[in-house]
């Protein structure tokens, strides 16, 4: 009877069991899900692609470490979030940045520093940032170094060719020379689609291979780390707008309604990478599902607006960043429906 008396008991508030899920596990799973895409990137663009990505990852990790040390915070480098930022940034850069003359190797480093320090840690670290760090890093670089950031290498199996040829991205061709030219560049439509799907095209390191990205996205959805709401509304609205407004008569330069090619728009550029891996960043998108749908539609619409009408061939990055501005507003105005609440209280808001 006495033996149980003097044991030390731990007292905490309920619940007393917790799920196995943790931030670290989520972050590393996302990193893992990007593995196929980065492998394809390395296959198409050679070791340079890997160097750029690794450079981004290392400088992100170091930035995170030094800022957290400097601010006397707990160092959370191992939770995988800084790694993810670096990886995503690297995947959004052209492999041509690994070049010694002209010297552009500092560019990925600057991007990582901006991403981690200005976009994330100045706001208090993981969970508090308003903007997607990797995308801000990339936007900062694109504006700062417009030339270096738009030199695209042709995908080649010439693995160690340091003086790789350059080419325009499919979206660049589409914007400057039209759909016909794009099909010509790839032979025929079937070939175009299959090459785009596989990722055999000029572009950022990690964005080209649609199929590898979709594979990773499928994994994340299966693990329920992301839900369909945001990516599908993003892609669907973009596809719809591409179909309706994407057509263009090359002779007159006038818009041809309902003649656009949504497949090309969905398979080229960074839209798949953006929709599944960047827009869905928990911290910077709305957390209520209904809000995520609005967010996704906004991203899709802005992407197509910039692609078809704007000054850049690709709009995914700016579209997501612009919607990041609106995420707090969406969160504030689109709440969940409280159980048992009848409409009247909602309209009172």
């Amino acid at each position, binding site marked *: *009877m006495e*033996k*149980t*008396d003097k*044991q030390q*008991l*731990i*007292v*905490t*508030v*309920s*619940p*007393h*069991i*917790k*799920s196995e*899920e*943790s*931030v670290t*596990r*989520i972050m590393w799973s996302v990193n893992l899900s990007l593995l196929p895409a980065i492998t394809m990137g390395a296959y198409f663009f050679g070791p340079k692609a890997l160097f750029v990505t690794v450079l981004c990852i290392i400088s992100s990790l170091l930035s995170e470490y030094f800022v957290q040390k400097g601010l006397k915070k707990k160092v*959370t480098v191992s*939770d995988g979030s800084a790694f993810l930022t670096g990886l995503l940034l690297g995947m959004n850069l052209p492999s041509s940045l690994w070049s010694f003359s002209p010297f552009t190797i500092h560019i990925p480093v600057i991007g990582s520093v901006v991403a981690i320090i200005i976009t994330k840690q100045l706001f*208090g*670290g*993981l*969970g*508090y940032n308003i903007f997607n760090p990797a995308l801000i890093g990339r936007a900062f670089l694109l504006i700062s170094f417009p030339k270096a950031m738009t030199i695209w290498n042709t995908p080649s199996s010439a693995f160690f060719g340091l003086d790789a040829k350059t080419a325009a991205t499919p979206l660049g061709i589409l914007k400057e020379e039209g759909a016909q030219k794009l099909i010509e560049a790839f032979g025929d439509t079937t070939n175009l689609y299959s090459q785009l799907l596989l990722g055999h095209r000029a572009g950022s390191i990690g964005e080209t291979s649609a199929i590898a990205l979709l594979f990773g996205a499928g994994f994340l959805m299966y693990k329920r780390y992301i839900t369909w709401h945001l990516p599908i509304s993003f892609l669907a609205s973009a596809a719809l707008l591409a179909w309706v407004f994407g057509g263009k008569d090359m002779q007159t330069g006038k818009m041809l309604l309902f003649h656009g090619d949504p497949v090309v728009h969905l398979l080229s550029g960074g839209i798949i990478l953006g929709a599944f891996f960047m827009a869905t960043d*928990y*911290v910077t998108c709305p*957390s*209520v*599902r209904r809000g995520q749908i609005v967010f996704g539609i906004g991203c899709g619409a802005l992407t197509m607006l910039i692609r078809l009408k704007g000054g850049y061939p690709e709009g995914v990055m700016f579209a997501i960043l612009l919607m990041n501005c609106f995420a707090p507003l969406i969160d504030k105005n689109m*709440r*969940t*429906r*409280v*159980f*048992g*609440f*009848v409409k009247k209280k909602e309209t009172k808001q």
Partner: protein
Amino acid sequence: MGVLTFSGGIHPPDKKELSKESPVTPATLPQRVIIPLSQHTGAPCKPVISIGQEVKKGELIGEPGGFVSAPVHSSISGKVTAIAEFPNAMGRMVTSVFIENDGREEWTALKDSPDYKNLSVDELKEKIKSAGIVGLGGAAFPTSVKLSPPKEKHIDTVIINGAECEPYLTADYRLMIERPDEIIEGLRIIMKVLGVSKGFIGIEDNKPDAVERMTQAAGRDPEIMVLALEVKYPQGAEKMLIKAVTGREIHPRGLPMDVNVVVQNVGTALAIYEAARFGKPLIERVVTVTGEGINRPSNLMVRIGTPVSALIDECGGFRGISGKVIAGGPMMGFALSSLDVPVTKGTSGILVIPEGEVIHANDFETCIRCGRCIDVCPMGLMPSMLSVLSEKAHYEDTKEYNIFDCFECGSCAYVCPSKRPIVQFIRLAKSLIKP
């Protein structure tokens, strides 16, 4: 018929296999019981005995202190040794009666009524009331009050809550397996008292044998229906159960009677039957003693007032170093700071979690806004916002996010990948502001 359920909720491992097969056995009589005079929601009882007095089993020792209250009876025969303040499971000091067991097990005079089926509604109500029956699911709300709804509320449905959605606990399950007929009788009495012709028994789908037994016991009675519900926590929460069974949603601040429903736990139904039939007061209940940290998980019929330490010894003591001992289930139960606290009418289980599996609340991270808690909240709240607002001392703003609609089921804290003690934050904010 489709799966009956509500939206939100979680699927924690149910761990019921630990104690599922163990039949309810009477626990060894305790040397001494400590019976708190406030075991229910509402006004505490006033003691009606004095120190040194001999009491018999079932004798009234505390009379109700108000309308929302329930009398308390002695659970053993013996001698009152003290009436003093003693901590209960929540750690609050409560006036309690200490009774030393004389081992004679002598019953006080009970009013047996073999013809209970012919009793009038008022007589039945009186029996239930004087038996001191409260909701045995955990909330311990006086049953007689629930059975006397105000006139303007027209009750049309009674639901017996056999969901037992808390992991580990098997007390209700065992009762449904072992005493289905008496539970059905209890339900009939409740229906008679309320003048209702629709009775449901809602049971989670992970207990198919219980569903079967109860269906058998209900027989061909067209008024009673046994329903299998989706296995999901908190299926057994009153509001969620009503939603799953009837499709009706209660306004967040409302009561079941606002949608014309009364819900009773299976244990309560059994107690009602026993009170009506034998006049037996509520002096014992089934307690599941379980968890990875206990040697012989079992279901025991325990006298109210038995110290928790006695139950743990009876089940073979701790296995290894005990980490946490919880009164109730793992999701909503209270961690005990001492094993001396007594079992009360609301104690459905004693759960021992070994030290290695305890999650410490102090190492949590910032909210990454993943929205999991929003998805699982059965009340449709935004626990992420509530916890952040409370963490940053913006307590007033939590009202805007309907903090008072939270019933602290803990689903949010369960799924949180940052391991945030969301329930704790919510309780803190609730305690600092007024609704």
